[in-house]
């Protein structure tokens, strides 16, 4: 399907964004990205290893010319930490498009929405284009959009949990009210979860662990690619109404 998807002025044909963490090797990561058909990947910003400079570099496996790098603020628990990280990312990469996440605690990695909103406003004032990881609270989602975020990215469930889309009602509310892309970020465990997110009308899905921790990450990446396409097409096609009783598919007329 040639339908394009646009976020912050960038046109993408793949609605599947993948993370680059937790893979056994960057080579495996690159193969999964290829199989997923991903055009955008999230990356983290970390200290250069001064003692072991022969360690493989992400950029040597996932070419930033081929994939849109989306630097994240994983591990940041205050707006200031997140802004510091993303300013470094902007200097390292030379672009303004970022993924903001401000977390509340290590156990749940649940987004701290008050800090997230504060950080989003500061980043946007500083010229960043902010795709924002958030809770599935439609009120905060609206505030983030009003603040100027270029994509709203509610969690399906906790980061790395693989529990799927546990609050589809809220995800749909966010989809209905938003005029910027809505991308489910976090919680997808398997292909059907990605399809559910897309059937709810989301513009895309962002995932990492579901692919990286599959027994065969490349095969799961391919499964996710098909699930996202299937879910999108089902959403556009418009599902049949649910009924309480059977409705025969074969005509009753002419029955012998």
């Amino acid at each position, binding site marked *: 399907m040639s339908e394009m998807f646009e976020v912050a002025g960038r046109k993408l044909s793949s609605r599947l964004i993948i993370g680059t963490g*937790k893979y056994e090797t960057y080579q495996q*990561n690159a193969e999964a990205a290829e199989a997923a058909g991903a055009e955008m990947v999230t*990356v*983290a910003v970390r200290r250069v290893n*001064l003692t072991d400079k022969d360690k493989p570099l992400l950029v040597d496996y996932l070419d930033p010319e081929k994939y849109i*790098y989306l630097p*994240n603020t*994983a591990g940041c628990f205050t707006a200031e930490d997140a802004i*510091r990280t993303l300013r470094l*990312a902007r200097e390292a990469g030379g672009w303004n498009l970022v993924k903001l996440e401000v977390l509340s605690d290590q156990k749940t990695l649940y987004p701290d929405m008050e800090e997230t909103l504060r950080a989003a406003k500061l980043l946007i004032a500083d010229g960043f284009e902010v795709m924002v990881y958030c809770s599935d609270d439609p009120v905060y989602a609206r505030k983030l959009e009003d603040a100027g975020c270029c994509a709203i990215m509610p969690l399906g469930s906790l980061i790395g949990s693989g529990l799927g889309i546990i609050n589809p009602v809220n995800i749909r509310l966010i989809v209905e009210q938003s005029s910027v892309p809505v991308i489910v970020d976090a919680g997808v465990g398997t292909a059907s979860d990605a399809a559910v997110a897309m059937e709810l009308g989301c513009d895309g899905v962002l995932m990492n662990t579901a692919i990286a921790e599959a027994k065969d990450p490349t095969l799961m990446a391919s499964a996710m690619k098909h699930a996202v396409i299937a879910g999108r097409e089902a959403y556009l096609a418009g599902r049949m109404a649910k009924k309480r009783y059977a409705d025969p598919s074969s005509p009753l007329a002419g029955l012998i």
Partner: protein
Amino acid sequence: MDITVNGEEKRFEGEVSVAGLLTALALEPKKIAVERNLEIVPKSLYGETELADGDKIEIVQFVGGG
């Protein structure tokens, strides 16, 4: 001159610029970003930014993440 780079103490003799530090560490400027005492050093200023005793330097790069 003693400076801290990514949490590690480093000693240099004489004047050293950010560009000189990166050369000494064999790091390619294109792939990294540098922060000096919490202020970003733009790539265009690596050559003219001289380090001072006690500076705290952070050098970061992109790594895999979700």
